[in-house]
């Protein structure tokens, strides 16, 4: 241990370079993980947060609320499927709004008729809307008491935020859960030519004892126009979510490969460089396990230092918001990556360890240690 620490102290620059490489890589991985999580949460958070256990889209809607229209006949067909306990219309659209007389900004209205079928499932503070003109807002964008006015050529009711829900954005836009009547008023205010305002999806509550996934299959069989999904499937299969995941997984894979390769290469070269000294140590009685322990200690220290530094760099950044996208310090994901990178890094030191094990103390008498 003394030798391991002594070597690090004497070759600070070399080890510092490796620590900074590991720190930068860790920082990048954590930032990208936070962006991926934040992006998906902001993209489909409202679908996860809303209270309906199942959502039924029209096939034409391609699983996007804003792009869907449920015709009355389809709504009736869904309600008539055996196993459906209750149904309620859900719709969503993005508007231009002014909050407390400030600058115009985007606001997505997520509308429901029955709070238990499309309303916000749980609130972080405040209460559910009880009257027209009240809403629950996404907690990162609104505060209780905010007054939101939808901008358009027509007259739109003012909406007051009376409750807040965490992770409740949709399409990376500040989101308000509103009652159906307010949604109709807002839709007509922005488009005086608007015809019938139809729901984009139907929220479904399965009857007691009916499995949601099985009911989804039953609804799909009952009407070829229906595309029924459980709440989590509706969030995961929203267009774009899979592509975001796949793109980031490709990047994570490449970054995760670079860390052990850099660490492995570094310690392999260092081991080769000091092979003469290691041979001498073996010749005067140092056990191979002592040398291996010393090597692994260095690897562990360097990786831990790099990962800790990378995490420290990431911590202040994780409190930031990029546009409407809120990043977050997710301790579980930080721990996951720390353990994975440490394990991969230690694994990568195996080649160097093998070199150490192959040292023959007899070589010290012939000078072969330098070979």
């Amino acid at each position: 241990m003394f030798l391991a620490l002594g070597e690090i102290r004497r070759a600070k620059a070399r080890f510092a370079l490796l620590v900074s490489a590991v720190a930068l890589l860790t920082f990048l991985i954590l930032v990208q993980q936070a962006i991926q999580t934040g992006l998906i949460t902001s993209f489909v958070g409202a679908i996860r947060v809303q209270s309906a256990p199942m959502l039924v889209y029209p096939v034409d809607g391609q699983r996007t609320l804003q792009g869907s229209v449920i015709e009355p006949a389809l709504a009736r067909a869904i309600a008539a499927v055996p196993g459906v306990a209750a149904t309620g219309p859900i719709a969503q659209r993005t508007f231009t709004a002014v909050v407390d007389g400030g600058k115009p900004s985007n606001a997505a209205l997520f509308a429901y008729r029955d709070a238990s079928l499309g309303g916000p499932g749980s609130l972080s503070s405040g209460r559910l809307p009880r009257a027209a003109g009240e809403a629950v807002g996404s907690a990162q964008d609104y505060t209780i008491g905010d007054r939101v006015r939808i901008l358009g050529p027509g007259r739109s009711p003012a909406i007051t935020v009376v409750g807040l829900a965490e992770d409740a954005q949709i399409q990376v836009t500040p989101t308000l859960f509103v009652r159906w009547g307010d949604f109709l008023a807002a839709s007509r205010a922005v488009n005086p030519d608007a015809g019938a305002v139809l729901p984009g999806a139907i929220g479904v509550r399965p009857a007691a004892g009916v499995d949601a996934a099985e009911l989804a299959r039953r609804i799909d069989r009952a009407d070829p126009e229906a595309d029924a999904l459980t709440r989590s499937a509706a969030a995961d299969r929203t267009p774009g979510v899979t592509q975001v995941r796949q793109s980031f997984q490709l990047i994570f894979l490449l970054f995760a490969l670079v860390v052990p390769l850099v660490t492995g290469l570094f310690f392999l070269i260092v081991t080769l460089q000091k092979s003469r000294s290691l041979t001498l140590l073996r010749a005067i009685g140092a056990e191979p396990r002592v040398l291996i322990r010393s090597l692994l200690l260095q690897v562990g220290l360097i990786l831990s230092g790099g990962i800790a530094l990378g995490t420290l760099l990431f911590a202040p950044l994780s409190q930031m918001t990029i546009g409407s996208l809120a990043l977050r310090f997710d301790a579980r994901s930080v721990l996951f990556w720390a353990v994975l990178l440490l394990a991969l890094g230690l694994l990568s030191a195996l080649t160097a360890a093998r070199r150490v094990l192959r040292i023959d103390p007899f070589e010290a008498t012939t000078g072969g240690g330098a070979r």
Partner: protein
Amino acid sequence: MRLALRELHRRPGRFVVATAILTLIAILLMVLGGLLDGLTAGSTGAFRAQRASLIVYSATAQDSLVRSRITPATRRTVERSAGGKVGGLGSIQLGARIPGRGPRDLVPVILFGFELPPKGLPSSPPGGRDVWADTSLRVRGVRIGTVVRLGPARTPVTVAGFVSDTRFSGQGTLWGSLATWRSVLAVNRPAEQAGAGVVQALVVEGATQRPAAIDAATGGATRTLTIGGAIAALPGLSQQQSVFNQIIGITVAIGVIVVALFFALITVERTPLYGVLKALGAGSRSLFEGVLVQAVAVTAAASAIAVAASLALAAAIPAGSIPFVATPQRLLTSTVYLLIAAVVGCVFSLRRILRIDPASAIGGEQ
């Protein structure tokens, strides 16, 4: 320099791991850049294809095409004040039923209605229910003459031709007349239907007035942007570019560190050899040039492998999944970034080479 090249030639194994790491970093750079290019191209094509220089939204639209509504009265004011040719533009995103695909296998498309043709489209909008399709829809089975049925109303439109690089919001586009757009909108999205003469936006070709003058003439009812400004205002685009470019920058910095680390270690290992070479008359400059040549060669090899891997990846990725494109420009710039990183990384070894004393060759350092 010759010695350095000979070492590379005779003992390539020494450089394999460093080349592998740099290859991974090069692939990372090219994948990150390719993803950014793919996302940008797929989101902005319809605007980049415009011949017009300006786009006019309604003031409350927050620069969003789907939220904008321009009335005939506002249009007349813009026509009087802008100079140049003014044309309407409308869009709607729908599921498209394409013959040969399953009843649930719809393709998301955006139908644009236009008056002033973007690049690659005929000089006047197609008549009847004819549309021109973006070439990206070919892989979905769209051909000339294909009847595509749009939205829940299954509104039929017939593909009369193809236009390239006009994707928007990551989706393939169809281009028809404003009348086609208006009728498709009315039956498929009654809540969003546009009244007579109403369009979502106006495009202005050969405008003689500045955007601010047009907005002033409409009394603040409009917000006029250059096409470049409209692209930059697309939701999330600028944030996306800035985040990706920062990640690319840090990845280049990691490249610098890897090269610095590797060649610093190699230099330490070669210190006695460099001492001998210096004693024989070699200058620090020629020794550093050798390190530089090796770093550049290793990086060039890594970049070449990464270019091949990126091209293979672009060919292997199925259309419509990961938005990745490998453009020659991106591959070239990534290679240049890495070569610069290699040169910068080598500078860390320069100080050590300068400090080598030729006397060390005869044990003078003892």
